[in-house]
């Protein structure tokens, strides 16, 4: 695997200097420069180098970056692409193509029975906050929503969710701290049915995908949900700040509960969330929402064009 920007063509001193400058510079500055590069006439080594840097710096990952760039290079070699601006536009198309290659699975309430949405992910990614935002959205769309507080482990996780439930005006069904999460889910299902709810959103405890027992617990929760005969969907929350581990997370969660969608959280920060390209490509799971803040309204439907454009912003 040979990447252009890994070539040793510059002298090290010059490179170190460039590094220092680069680290000082804000990202927009760096990529402002990038756009200028693409406005040039000729495709040079530098074009590729900067392109690769852009992708890696966005957490797209070395392997995915390499695959993308290689296919562009082939198209330049064959004469199909001639100018840097073509290369950029084509790359954008390819990136969008990855994200759009998986049809959205619309889990939105259809009014025919209860939909149970299980929200999973590693610790601190934004599961609870995302649930609050989803509840708020669904309610605004006229759906009857109930929230199940199946994080019985983390200190005050239930209280956190109850505050959000109040803010969203949605009932929260909870058990005692440290009680069995599967039984909370069981109760929440019953409550959702009694209330003839359209959607039951289930908050689960954060768990590292490497913890065998915790993943088994999740499997058990899912079993309880599926046995209820309702439609079920599982959403994985990925933190945009996460690097290459995001793919390992998605893989393991997908193996445990099968995923229907991904929510990318914390997109209001400076991270670009580039790992989702590998996630979508490898696991074939569509991205559902993008979370952009800590307020209840900070959740948007995923928009692949906006997401790809943001790599260059």
């Amino acid at each position, binding site marked *: 695997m040979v990447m252009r920007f890994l070539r040793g063509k510059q002298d090290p001193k010059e490179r170190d200097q460039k590094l220092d400058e680069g680290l000082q510079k804000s990202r927009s500055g760096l990529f402002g420069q990038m756009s200028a590069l693409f406005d040039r006439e000729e495709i040079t080594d530098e074009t590729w180098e900067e392109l690769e840097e852009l992708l890696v710096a966005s957490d797209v990952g070395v392997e995915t970056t390499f695959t993308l760039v290689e296919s562009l290079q082939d198209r330049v070699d064959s004469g199909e692409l001639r100018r840097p601006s073509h290369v950029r536009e084509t790359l954008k198309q390819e990136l969008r193509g990855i994200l759009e290659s998986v049809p959205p699975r619309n889990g939105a309430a259809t009014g025919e029975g209860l939909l149970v949405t299980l929200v999973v992910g590693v610790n601190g990614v934004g599961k609870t906050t995302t649930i609050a935002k989803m509840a708020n959205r669904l309610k605004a769309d006229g759906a009857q929503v109930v929230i199940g507080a199946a994080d019985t482990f983390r200190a005050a996780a239930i209280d956190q969710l109850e505050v959000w439930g109040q803010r969203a005006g949605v009932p929260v069904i909870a058990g005692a701290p440290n009680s069995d999460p599967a039984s909370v889910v069981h109760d929440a299902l019953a409550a959702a049915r009694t209330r003839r709810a359209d959607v039951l959103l289930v908050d689960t405890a954060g768990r590292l995908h490497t913890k065998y027992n915790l993943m088994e617990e999740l499997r058990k929760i899912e079993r309880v949900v599926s046995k209820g005969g309702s439609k079920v969907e599982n959403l994985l929350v990925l933190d945009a700040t996460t*690097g290459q581990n995001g793919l390992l997370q998605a893989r393991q969660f997908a193996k445990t509960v099968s995923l229907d969608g991904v929510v990318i959280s914390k997109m209001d920060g400076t991270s670009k969330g580039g790992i989702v390209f590998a996630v979508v490509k490898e696991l074939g799971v569509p991205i559902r929402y993008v979370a952009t803040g*800590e307020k209840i309204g900070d959740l948007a439907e995923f928009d692949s064009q906006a997401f790809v454009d943001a790599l260059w912003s």
Partner: protein
Amino acid sequence: MFESLTDRMQGTFKKLNSKGRIAENDVDLALREVRISLMEADVNLKVAKQFVNGVKAKVEDAHALESLNPTQQIIQVVNEEMVELLGSEEAKLQTAPAPPTVLMMVGLQGSGKTTHSAKLALLLRRQGGKPMLVAADVYRPAAVKQLETLGGNLKIPVHSEGTQVAPERIAANAVAEARANGYTHVILDTAGRLSIDEAMMQELERVKEATNPTETLLVADAMTGQEAVRVAQQFHERLGVTGLIMSKMDGDARGGAALSIRSVTGVPIKFIGTGERPEALEPFMPDRMASRILGLGDMLSLIERAQAAFDERQAAELEQKMRTATFTLEDFYTQLQTIKSMGPLSQLLDMIPGMGSAMRNQDVQVDEREMKRIEAIIQSMTPDERQHPEILKNGRRRKRVAAGSGTSVADVNALLSQFNQMQKMMKQLTAGGSRGKLPRIPGLFS
């Protein structure tokens, strides 16, 4: 997808070797592999560049290419450099000249500040201190309650004033209270925030001004990607961070953010968080972090996990066997049973240098079914065969084992070659320089 660095470099040198003599600029080729590996570990791409450039002269000085095993040599130099960069000095918590010592916890949302506040409090109390926790996150719903619950469980006092008082006031009041009541430490749990959130960063500056903390600890998630550099730099510029805590190190993130943050801020890494429980806090060990970032496998973690699952005598035996490479199929089988309680096999195998990719190259997915198959195959062997797998070279024996276990000869072959690999790795580990590279922990490899 994530090949280990050793595999990757060995691949490069294999290509080079088949070309004939190894040439001068092949160091560049080898170092390129290092750089790619670092980026796969989430080391910031610019930091990775800088690091590799810095290491180049040392690799050349070491005449690595003339050695019999250039891969090993280069990795050794790279590893030493990284250990050096990560901080060879022991980074202890500083203490204020007059109590209380104030520790201010800062970081992005969800990085683990609250949990680590509680962990530090527990540690300090175990060291004989009298710590106080302070709930200065007035934003996240139930953040105050979370800290109060954690403090309550540990019987460590929590100073809280609800969510209507400004964090800097809460913090200042807490310090005054601590001073009046003989507390040794005040741990300020602040709200998570984006480093580009100007108003929130100003708030931290005010908290700092009001309490003059001895330590400002940045809690960073081990899974953080390329932006770790910028985030850490911004927190550092605004607040003068004095120490880092890498959280969620119990996962399988390579943790390149540690190198990125350390090299742009120069701030020492003081602790790693290794679990959700308040006990799960460990001192930072640069040598272990380095081999984790470099993807050199983590034999020590493997042995530690084994120790947790096996009884001590068994663990000592396992260690001895790995060390002398007299680990047999019989041992493998007995331990498979125990290993089941340690987590998925694939993950454990990944900790053995070279093993993860050895498995992947054969496209073997280790799952529970696979494990059952392995068990069945070993069960079908005679005690003699388990002790001396060499005799299984005999085709008839293999056929018998396959039939007995309801598998195919190919399955038996696959297991044997995996086992062979494993033994080889163990031999390499103990024969090569690696043993000396393991941290000196009393009782282990000493």
